[in-house]
């Protein structure tokens, strides 16, 4: 190496390298920020489009139910409420399982779509590809059916050999149903936006008895 390793040289080279690299990254960030945001928005819009009937406007909001926060999108068509698309996350077999659950104002699930998962390829990962498993969520009415897998006494057909994933999926849908229930039918004004202890108790009771409406 031509350059001596004395303090002055080392400090100068390291400083210069870091300055140069951060400048490059800063520039690259500024250039790619718009396309990255567009890609993320497109993905969300696509997911909402999959789980709700046709709409022309969405608004992003956040709800807190049972101490968990859920981002959700209110979809409107010509000013009328078409439904809610709720982002609901539970823990599956391999990590977080994130769903977009579309629910119409009457509380019926319109459709669901997987946003991200870390399930086992060929087993739990089928929750995002298995036609039979995915089809059962269309028009699932939580007031007449129970949102747990058949093994646990519910009405959800689990994916073969992937009960844990199926349970997590059903729970995520249940959470979204609860969110919409809280939004459509607030126990008292303000309960949808800020969590209150009494509201929480109310919510967990309705969860145990899905026929209660």
């Amino acid at each position, binding site marked *: *190496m031509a*350059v001596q390793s004395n303090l002055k*040289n080392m400090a100068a*080279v390291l400083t210069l390298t870091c300055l140069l690299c951060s400048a490059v990254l800063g520039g690259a960030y500024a250039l*790619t920020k718009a396309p*990255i945001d567009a890609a993320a928005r497109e993905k969300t819009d696509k997911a909402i489009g999959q789980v709700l009937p046709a709409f022309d406007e969405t608004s992003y909001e956040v709800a807190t139910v049972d101490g968990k926060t859920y981002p959700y999108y209110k979809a409107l068509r010509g000013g009328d409420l078409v439904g809610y698309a709720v982002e609901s996350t539970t823990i599956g077999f391999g990590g977080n399982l994130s769903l977009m659950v579309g629910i119409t104002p009457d509380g019926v699930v319109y459709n669901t779509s997987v946003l991200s998962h870390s399930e086992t390829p060929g087993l739990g990962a089928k929750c995002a590809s298995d036609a039979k498993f995915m089809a059962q969520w269309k028009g699932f009415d939580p007031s007449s059916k129970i949102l747990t897998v058949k093994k646990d006494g519910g009405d959800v057909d689990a994916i073969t050999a992937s009960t844990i994933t199926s349970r997590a999926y059903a729970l995520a849908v249940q959470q979204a149903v609860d969110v919409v229930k809280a939004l459509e039918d607030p126990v008292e004004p303000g309960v949808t936006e800020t969590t209150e202890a009494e509201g929480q108790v109310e919510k967990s009771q309705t969860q145990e008895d899905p026929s209660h409406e």
Partner: protein
Amino acid sequence: MSNKLKLITDGLAKNNPTFVLLLGMCPTLATTTSAVNGLSMGLATLFVLVLSNMAISAIAPAVPDKVHIPVYIVVIATFVTLLQFLMQAYTPAVYETLGLFIPLIVVNCIVLGRAEAFASKNGVLASACDGLGVGLGFTASLTVLGLVREIFGSGSVFGWNFIGGHDGMLAFVMAPGAFICLGYLMVLFNKFIKKD
């Protein structure tokens, strides 16, 4: 010129990072669940490898010996972050599949290994060829490994299913299959392709 060409073919066969040098095993085993995943991971590493080799060979004479590792790591990390931005912007689906393994290219032994062993001692063009060769070797190995695992594990080739909706042999998609396939491919590679 033939010298440069030799650098590229060396990376594919004699210095093949996966089957001969056994470097970068973590992404090799983890991301090759399908041919497309293996190919994407290989290309991502190729991108970083060529650029970091070139940059490091250019700055190496000006870097004091005692701080050369931190400087190289910063340079490599810069290219990896650049790659992350680009992938998030233009290939978000691939970026999500590979997930954590993209940032982990920073500490991939292949990249730092080539910087240490080759780029810091050679010219920019030669280093670019070396990066290209080793990168292509890595890409080819990962694609083949992914292809074999996909054929047995999911019954498909590059996503095209040929067993009509049946399940493949699951073990090949999971970790044990990665080790088994890698072992057998290594045997075949050393028997038929690696020649000194």
